[in-house]
């Protein structure tokens, strides 16, 4: 999948988890480094910077948030958090601290790889400055600030466009409510989640074939929104409902 051999640092105190992650990433073409503790992870990240970090939150020596915060003080490496169910607040906190995405244990390898590639592509895109992004039938021309569905121009209000733009920049990864509210409406509206609900509904009516069955602008309940991964060709679409 990835053109250049990339490296991943897997941070988890459970050996069996590290083992299957190692195999999964190696089969996907990654070089894998492992760390058992937070301290070890920070040391490894300093000595041998990797292209991706997978960070488990239940480390024996340090709070996952601490590891993330320290790492982010010098590194913008794409980072996916391994979380447990029912900790929406913690997920939000870690995303706010700079994690690119999360997966909930237990998870399938494909899901983790998809999140990881999205996070890595974002960095790549940021460095390349791609002007046009495609999400199935939706394309966004970031330079012209224009949005098209199947080549037909869609008219968005400035705030709708701003919302879509932020989601597109993080496409494939979740963006928290707070981040979106702060970026679009400003700090004073950070708790006005209903703004988002109403704007997302409007946006979905304009870009989704069926706004009640969104395929592009997805909801992460209790956390935020996720625009599907940008793809190289419009032919690649998410699997339709009902297919295993």
């Amino acid at each position, binding site marked *: 999948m990835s053109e250049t051999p990339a490296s991943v640092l897997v941070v988890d105190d459970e050996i069996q988890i590290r083992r299957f992650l190692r195999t999964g990433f190696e089969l996907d073409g990654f070089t894998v480094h492992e760390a058992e503790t937070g301290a070890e992870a920070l040391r490894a990240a300093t000595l041998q910077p990797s292209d991706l970090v997978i960070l488990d939150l239940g480390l024996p020596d340090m709070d996952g948030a601490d590891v993330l915060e320290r790492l982010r003080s010098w590194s913008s490496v794409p980072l996916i958090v391994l979380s447990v169910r029912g900790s929406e607040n913690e997920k939000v906190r870690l995303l706010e601290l700079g994690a690119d995405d999360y997966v909930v244990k*237990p998870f399938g390898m494909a899901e983790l790889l998809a999140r990881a590639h999205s996070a890595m592509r974002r960095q790549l895109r940021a460095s390349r400055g791609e002007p046009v992004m495609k999400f199935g039938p939706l394309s966004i021309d970031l330079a012209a600030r224009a949005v098209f569905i199947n080549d037909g121009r869609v008219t968005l209000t400035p705030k709708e466009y701003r919302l879509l733009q932020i989601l597109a920049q993080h496409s494939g990864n979740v963006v928290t409510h707070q981040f979106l509210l702060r970026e679009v409406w400003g700090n004073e509206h950070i708790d006005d*989640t209903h703004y988002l609900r109403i704007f997302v509904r409007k946006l979905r009516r304009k870009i989704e074939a069926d706004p009640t069955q969104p395929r592009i602008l997805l909801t992460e309940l209790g956390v935020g929104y996720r625009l599907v991964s940008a793809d190289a060709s419009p032919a690649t679409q998410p699997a339709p409902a009902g297919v295993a």
Partner: protein
Amino acid sequence: MRREMRGIAIALMFVAVTTAVALLLRHYVGILRGAVLYLVPVMLAGYQFGVIPALVAAIAGVVLSGYLYFAQFYSFKVASPQEALNLLLFMVVAVVVSHLSSQAKQHILIARKRERQMSDLYAFSRRLAMAPSAAEIFVAIQEHLADLVQRKVVLLGTADVGHGDDVPESVRAAVARVEHDEGLERTVDDGNGNIWLIRRVSPKTPDFGLVAVDLGNVSGQPLADMRQRIDDALADAAATLERLDVARALNEAKMRSETELLREALIGSVSHELRTPLASILGAATILHNAPALAKDPRLQALTSVVRDEAERLNIDIQNLLDATTISRQQVRPKLQWVEPVDIVNAAFEHRRRRLSGYPVTFDLDSNLPIVHVDPAQVEQALVQIIDNAAKYSPVGTPIRVAAHPNGQTVMLSVHDSGSGLTAEEKRQVGGRFFRGPRHKVTTSGSGLGLWIANAFVTANGGKVEVESAGADRGTTVTIHLPLSPEAEQLETTVDE
């Protein structure tokens, strides 16, 4: 003393009435020997007022009967020695009668008092015998003793009763001594002239605590009597407590609640511990499933999907147990936020996409539902349970319909299946913890927790779950009703564009 004077006065009145009667009898009937009539006032006075008024009545009777009946009529002179003897005899009889009648009265009074005490004690015993718990017994003891002494009674020293905040400071030291096993009982003056009795409920064991009884300002015989009665009552109470094995019951109750806690903790921690190996199993299975080496052999690949699907099922079971633990610990605390109802439906479906793969699922979702103020994760989990049930109790290939509609002051999220439905009896019981329809016990695995969890989560969010079915094998519709917040509409119009 005043009572005595009153008794004497009334006794004299009795004598006067007797005299009037004697005079009337003498004048109109001609009875000349009526001295015996004077025994009546003596008897009455003795019975009603005791010995002294009776004696006064006797003396008055002797004098008047001497005047009326003996020797010269209407004179105080006694004619013959025989009449003097008669008078003396009368005197003796009067004294004996007065004594006897006053004694009889005393005995009746004592007997009545005994009877009342016995019936009190008996009622107390019965109440003890029927007391369902130790706490009840202690209340009975306290009330009975308070009734007995008509003063303050404090029970203390067991978990079920207070710790003696009502006991005066000056009495505390004595309480502490008895509590620390320095003797069975002691009395102490509280400094205001009131005597307090502190006594262990049972002489055999300190388990039943102790009583502090304010006996008031008493001494001598009344004090001894009161202590005797308290002793009797406590002996009875202690015997009952022992017979009922209250000590063991108390300990068992404590153990039961500890066992319950332990069980909950165990479920919680075991479930938590199971999740880690399960994450490895499931992760590894997904890798194997897509591994090129196995893709060549469909039999092996089928096995990897067995591992994956069963691990997923186990994961669902563990999550249900964790949810059930949270619910039974009453730790369901919704984190409310504004949510698009359709998002909840889609998330729940997404979580069970694979589970539903064999069923044609249709959606009927209103695109313009008002937003709701709920905990999205909890409502989603409730809907997931309902979707699980729909798949579990309807044959593969039959349609499942998921709908979201406004309905008055609620938003309805409903799941309709064409499966085994519910009989009237099943419908009545469904939703109880661990309830499973007897028709499915053999054929379908499950814990019977699903609808119970759904109901707990939805209720915590101010909604309700409704189950409908036209009958056995006629499908089921389960609906979550979410409350509409009155602010919702207003919020929609105040968005900063």
